[in-house]
């Protein structure tokens, strides 16, 4: 088992090195010249040249990469071209909001999706099943931007039940969490339904039913534990994706997370910030996958570490 973990960790490290090389090169493939952008429109070519030198952009590419990677290993991601603040400071100020929203979003997804998926599976082919799957389709295909604005308009502006966006209290998190929940629950509900159907057709379920175990107990005690496995894997992936920020939802609800910052940085071609966000996202996705892989065998003893 330890060999397995070690191997996965080494793989993860290699992925991250690859990501750092690619993001570094991508940022240099951009047509924008950061020195010229900082210099502004009244700058003479000599001024631009001086700023390029200050930024170290006139050094050979491998040297620049080495400096970048060396900084990264020491927790230094450079300074934002636009805000002039350290990228790590910016990321640190944004991470808590993103973590909260990711957790809330996943909770809402599960609260909505698990009951729906289970009910749909139990009532397979009946009207309830079809209605549930229509909802799932609706959720999957609704654009987060439109859904978020509609929720905000009714619950925030019209009914004044929740604030019009912002951050701080539990009330602030309801709508953004719900928006992620509704749009994400469709996937979860469909996976839950098919997984449940598969488990319900297993021999041991029939045995349990034959023994006279109540339907409720069959579902909660016997079927659910196995049917939920694919959901765990999905949560692992979701954590990774959400940690890079939920750009649209964060923008609509004025949620001060990483996604909002990434969106601003992309518009302003603030390369150090973009690279910082990509790095955080890559680390989060790698960790999310790793966790899902490691938790699996605990829940299902049939899976072995190899």
């Amino acid at each position: 088992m330890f060999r397995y973990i070690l191997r996965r960790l080494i793989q993860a490290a290699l992925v991250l090195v690859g990501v750092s090389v690619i993001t570094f090169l991508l940022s240099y493939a951009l047509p924008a010249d950061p020195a010229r952008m900082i210099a502004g429109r009244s700058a003479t070519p000599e001024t631009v040249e001086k700023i390029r030198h200050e930024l170290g952009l006139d050094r050979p590419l491998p040297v620049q990469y080495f400096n970048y990677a060396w900084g990264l290993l020491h927790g230094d991601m450079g300074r934002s071209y636009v805000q002039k603040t350290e990228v790590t400071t910016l990321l640190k100020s944004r991470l808590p909001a993103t973590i909260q929203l990711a957790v809330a979003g996943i909770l809402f997804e599960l609260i909505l999706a698990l009951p729906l998926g289970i009910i749909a599976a139990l009532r397979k082919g009946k009207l309830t099943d079809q209605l549930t799957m229509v909802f799932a389709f609706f959720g999957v295909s609704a654009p987060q931007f439109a859904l978020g604005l509609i929720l905000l308009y009714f619950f925030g502006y019209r009914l004044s039940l929740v604030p019009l966006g912002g951050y701080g209290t539990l009330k602030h998190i309801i709508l953004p969490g719900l928006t992620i929940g509704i749009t994400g629950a469709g996937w979860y509900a469909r996976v839950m339904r098919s997984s449940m159907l598969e488990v319900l057709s297993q021999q041991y379920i029939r045995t349990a039913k034959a023994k006279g175990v109540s339907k409720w107990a069959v579902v909660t005690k016997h079927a659910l534990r196995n049917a939920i496995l694919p959901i765990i894997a999905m949560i692992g992936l979701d954590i990774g994706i959400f940690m890079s920020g939920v750009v649209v939802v964060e923008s609509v609800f004025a949620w001060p997370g990483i996604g909002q910052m990434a969106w601003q940085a992309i518009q302003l071609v603030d390369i150090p910030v973009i690279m910082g966000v990509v790095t955080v996202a890559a680390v989060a996705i790698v960790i999310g996958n790793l966790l899902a892989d490691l938790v699996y065998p605990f829940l299902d003893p049939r899976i072995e570490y190899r």
Partner: protein
Amino acid sequence: MKRVVATVVLAVALIMSLALSAAASGGNVVVSFKSDVSTLDPAIGYDWQNWSIIKSIFNGLMDYVPGTTKLRTKLAKSYEISPDGLTYTFHLRDDVVFHNGRKVVASDVKYSLERVLNPETQSPGLGFYLGIKGAKAFSEGEAEEVSGIKVIDDHTIQFVLNEPNAAFLHILALNFSFVVPKEEVEKYGKDFGHHPVGTGAFRLKEWVLGQRLVLERNPDYFIPNRPQVDQITFLIGIEPTVALLKLQRGEVDILGDGIPPARFVQVMKDPKLSKLVEQGEQIQTGYVTLNTRVKPLDNKKVRQALNMAINKERICLMINNRAVPANQVLPPLMPGYDTEFSGYPYDPEKAKALLAEAGYSNGFSTVLYCSNVDPNPRIAQAIQQDLAAIGVNVEIKALAPSTVIQAGGTEGGAPMLWSGGMAWIADYPDPNNFYWPILASASATSGGWNWAWYSNPELDALAAKADTMVAPEEQEERLELWKKIYRQVMEDAPWIPIFHEKRFTMHSERLTGPEGIFVDPIHIPVNYEEVQIR
């Protein structure tokens, strides 16, 4: 009778209290912004969002009368200009203290400008101050100090220029020259922009990245009865659409990003909402550059023909009349705007005839660059249609603004370029700001902003002459000279001026202030120092 007296007394009391409340200062003004406020370092901040915020935290020697483009002194009490226009002597006020309690002295002014000229600061304003004697040598590391900035005593500072520059006072009203305390800059280093300490009407109270920036009244501010409110809160991360809802609910006082384009027509048609919108002008011109070094645009007749082919009214209509058609280089708010000049008429037939005269009776093909941010691609398409009508076949390249700017600054890079979203808003209200950076021969260089690559040495000489006219009694003559220069530019036709953008500031009903502060040409969206709560 008793009742009448009582009524009168009551009425007077009521009017008094109303009058008093109108004049009373205090309260918290809330401004919404979508994007984070970047740096508040006056040497570095150079976007429309932080420009006015910096002005409310810091001050320079010069400033403008609120709501106008008229210069007035600020940290300076008075100044003298030598007859040759080369030496400027400023006498500082002696009642100005930084937010940290220290008195401002002349060496602070020198320090602040040398900081801008030091390439390590990476100031986008560096170029404005190279006209000061010794500035170039200092910025290239060849001198310890700028010889042309002399501290005479604690309250007197003198600038010596290489050449006379009639816009020098404007340049000393730019944020880059604003005075910063050395000890605080050294304390915070590169993070000074997030710990601003100045002399201005407001000081920093709280800054939570990505959420809010709060400024509070500076009790030691040197101008009496200013600012008029206790606090200004900038709410960050608010989508313009949501900001409008918040304003309707009374949670926001000013839409920092303006009215969301998708809701513009609806807002303007709504009798209640449109009352909250104030319309003004901007010192801005949107234009198409015609590259004078690319065939067949190197032919003056071709450029003039293109000038007659564009239906500018239609383009303004396309953007819901958020702009007025332009017939010349300068916008109406700019001193030197020529009210007697009418420019080229919209006349496709005459344009065709002129093209034929130039030897292009069958038209030609060319490329038009533009920013890919709405509405610019739509405007480019309108230009494309208009030019197709006279037989000119235009291919549109809508790209990221930074890429378009790059193409414009490369010789032969962009035959035609629509400037919308990129250029040109005046840095300061003097006609030379529309000449030197975007039309002068010297700016037709790689990485420059003269995207037409226009070069007319005669006009360069006239512009240089205009800049030597610094005496107050010469100003009328100077503006006449600028009018002559810009008439010749229009004759040479390196541009097709398309429109001047208007400004729409939407604010809550409770906000008020002196005439014009909501469309102050120097402050976007509003002059924070002058704004009041009813």
